[in-house]
């Protein structure tokens, strides 16, 4: 095998391609401005109504014919890892199987080809679908209302915090309660969302056992606290044991409890946030409810709300009056906090999520959660003698967290270990998150893997851990060697940003 390190960019073949591994130029290097892959007839002569605002000069958009375009994108697609092709153990991301039934259903004309502003009387099925999805989400969470419009988890966080602030305004305490308590292990979106709305973020420490203790919350509470944002199960893969007591303390101090629902896949159908004192929580339909991640979206982040917050939900919201279902689109004369997005939310994702929920049913959702937790604990149990756990050997929820102690003295970092997994045919786990754990490796297998798939993953990780300990450093520091690319120079990318093609 050729040593790439000593022969930079050495072509192994005349074409530069290798078997099924094709290089693909940029669209701008193969397309031509005078070529199009869409046949559109020139309109009959007509009198333009553009006034003086017609575009002059070229746009700079090359075109490809259909066969060229198909080849371009197919070749590009082959440079991506995907859940369809392999286990995708990204912790906190819930990369479960994306059923194709959802894709088929979302493409029915009656869902895909309806306009958000057509008369509601012509979209009754859409409203009924939204209501049915709401019913599932409320039953699974035991909450009072759901705001469907948020576009993703972080958008849901904004929505939840806004409802909380709206409630504080109604109490006349919005000016004095400007603090949001957030554990250091939280997703970055939590403090970013709070800061965007002008809240002060106060960090609360977790105990040595990786969870937030009620006394730490009690110590941080005062009458400036608007809310606590807690992820449960938390980002260390642990259930916040004190959650009920924490909720009680926060409520007693006049604050609200926002729960980051990114990890709901551990407990859906097993326990309900509404029973734990949660006031607002976003649900990532693209995590727990299997809508595809699409290489970075679209997501969907409906927010379930407690009775105390329900009336502040954003517009549009569904209202059933005398058997008639309608969308309330304007906040006037309601206590709604206002509008968060142009239309009604991610309808295409609602169809997929409901398709998943109807397929699973209440029983199937609970089984999925239990399998997800079982799979994570199985990985933990099979890896605990070769990898190290930051909070001791204890049960986890749907993700297993390891630190880099087992790599101490080997010259191999968490990043190197992750890159070596790429060579073994796996997408790495989430690394260096949560920030509170040194060299964190957060593994979330989900319920979608068979036991043989989990076993194969275990033997690969065990072999890698043992190899690192044997001092086979190069396997790691030089990895990946079998991917479409080796490690890119990220520092150079940030120092002199090239964000578009220039011929």
């Amino acid at each position, binding site marked *: 095998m050729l040593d790439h390190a000593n022969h930079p960019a050495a072509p192994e073949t005349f074409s530069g391609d290798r078997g099924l591994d094709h290089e693909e130029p940029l669209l701008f290097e193969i397309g031509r401005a005078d070529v199009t892959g869409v046949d559109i007839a020139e309109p009959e002569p007509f009198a333009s109504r553009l006034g003086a605002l017609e575009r002059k000069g070229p746009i700079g958009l090359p075109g490809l014919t259909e066969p060229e375009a198909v080849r371009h994108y197919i070749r590009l697609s082959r440079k*991506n890892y995907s859940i369809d092709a392999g286990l995708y153990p990204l912790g906190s991301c819930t990369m479960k199987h994306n059923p194709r039934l959802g894709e088929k259903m979302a493409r029915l004309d009656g869902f*895909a080809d309806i306009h958000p502003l057509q008369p509601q009387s012509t979209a009754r099925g859409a409203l009924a*679908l939204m209501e049915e999805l709401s019913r599932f989400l409320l039953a699974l969470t035991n909450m009072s209302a759901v705001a469907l419009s948020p576009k993703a988890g972080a958008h849901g966080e904004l929505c939840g915090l806004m409802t909380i602030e709206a409630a504080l305004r109604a109490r006349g305490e919005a000016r004095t309660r400007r603090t949001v308590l957030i554990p250091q292990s939280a997703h970055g979106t939590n403090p970013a969302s709070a800061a965007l709305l002008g809240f002060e973020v106060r960090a609360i420490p977790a105990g040595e056992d990786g969870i937030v203790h009620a006394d730490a919350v009690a110590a941080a509470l005062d009458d400036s606290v608007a809310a606590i944002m807690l992820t449960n199960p938390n980002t260390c893969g642990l259930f916040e044991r004190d959650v*009920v007591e924490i909720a009680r303390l926060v409520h007693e101090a006049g604050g609200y409890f926002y729960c980051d629902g990114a990890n709901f896949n551990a407990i859906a159908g097993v*326990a309900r946030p509404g029973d734990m004192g949660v006031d607002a929580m976003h649900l990532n339909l693209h995590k727990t409810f299997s809508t595809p991640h699409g290489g970075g*979206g679209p997501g969907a982040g409906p927010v379930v709300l407690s009775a105390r917050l329900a009336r502040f939900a954003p517009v549009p919201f569904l209202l059933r009056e005398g058997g008639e279902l309608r969308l309330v689109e304007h906040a006037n004369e309601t206590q709604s906090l206002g509008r968060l997005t142009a239309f009604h939310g991610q309808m295409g994702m609602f169809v997929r999520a409901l398709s998943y929920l109807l397929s699973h049913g209440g029983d199937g959702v609970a089984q999925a959660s239990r399998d997800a937790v079982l799979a994570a604990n199985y990985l933990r149990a099979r890896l605990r003698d070769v990898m190290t756990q930051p909070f001791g050997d204890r049960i986890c929820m749907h993700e297993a967290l390891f630190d880099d102690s087992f790599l101490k003295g080997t010259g191999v970092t968490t990043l190197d270990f992750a890159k070596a997994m790429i060579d073994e045919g796996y997408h790495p786990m989430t690394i260096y998150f949560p920030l509170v754990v040194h060299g964190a490796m957060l593994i979330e297998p989900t319920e979608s893997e068979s036991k043989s798939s989990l076993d194969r993953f275990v033997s690969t990780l065990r072999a890698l851990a043992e190899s690192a300990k044997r001092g086979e450093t190069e396997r790691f520091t030089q990895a990946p060697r079998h991917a479409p690319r080796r490690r890119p120079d990220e520092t150079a990318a940030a120092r002199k940003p090239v964000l*578009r093609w220039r011929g």
Partner: protein
Amino acid sequence: MRYLPLTDEDRAKMREAIGVATIDELYADVPKDVLLKAPLDLPRGAPEMEVERRLAALARENVPASRAFLGAGAYRHHIPASVDHLIQRSEFLTSYTPYQPEISQGTLQVLFEFQTQVAALTGMEIANASMYDGSTACAEAALMAHRLTKRRKAVLSGGLHPHYAEVVRTISRFAGDEVVTLPPDIFAREDVAAHIDADVSCVIVQTPDVFGNLRDLSPIAEACHAEGALLVAVFTEAVSLGLLTPPGAFGADIVVGEGQSLGNPLSFGGPYVGLFATKREHLRQTPGRLCGETADADGRRSFVLTLSAREQHIRRDKATSNICTNSGLCALAFSIHLTLLGETGLRRLARANHASAVRLAERLAPIAGVDVLNDAFFNEFTLRVRGDAAALVETMAARGVLAGVPVSRLLPGAGLDDLLIVASTEVVTEADRDAFVAAIEGAL
């Protein structure tokens, strides 16, 4: 259950390896009184065929938008078959945000191409890797303008889509920023410049505006820059940029828009894709993901997500935005459609749209009780009708024509109940126009 590969035998072996007798033991940290004792009152799981029947029945209760003249922020266009096929490639559909660039070059190169296409289309220097939709991109633009100018007041044109204006107002109200919304500007005659003072961070103007009018942004850009404010230009119909002077050429500082028109179905309002472009000097205050070019360890061209020091997962409460997931797959659909069109196809598509709307306007103009209000327009214009436009739309819907968006749907109580926003794209046929004319004549 067809989505769950573990068998009871597997589960037993796994419990044994873990050292627990039941899965319940794994939930030992969950307080006993919140663990569900009985299954939830939800339907049991169903086979694929049953779910399909159920959802198809719901879909049939909706009237698809064929023979529809609806716009106002979402537009029906023909989507080439290859677009939908390509976005369903597993490697695009079922991958995550490209955090591991070595095995995500497909998504990353697409984003790099998308950014280049958006920058070219808008006439701007750089673009990000997409936002949720046009309206949230618009709100992010206001926040970015505040950061850049260190001022906190936005002026919204009366031609801005009312829902976009509401989204900006909602976030501003909570962030403690000031917003001035100009009254509905049906004839594009407002004097925005009169509202720009030393406290204004940005003016947000849409063209084509929500009523379909085309606006010359040059004088507004000059007025903004004279006072140290920024011009945020908005569009909701990306196809218009095939035929119209791009906002960049007018001197816009930030350009945001809705990209649904290219590659993405109407889908009752989402998922869509927000476009966000700006000047290179504003790079570090730009929200959202950015994809950049670099080289790998072998010196080969590679793409990575870059400048993440702006982002929430690094900067936390100091981030430029809280955005994490954006609209990757919709951006892919947009990019593929634009690649298939190319410059030649996009111009033709835009001309076909303009021609379609001009023909409809010409057919409607002679009808008694109908006035076409616009002077200049692209593929959408506003009608003043005799009586209530919303009632007219309901009557026409009963005759199989979805006639447009009543302004009262967007601006209830504004005294504009006789206005109807009508769009006509390339999918509208002469027979559709005949049906429209017959229906409106019958209804008036």
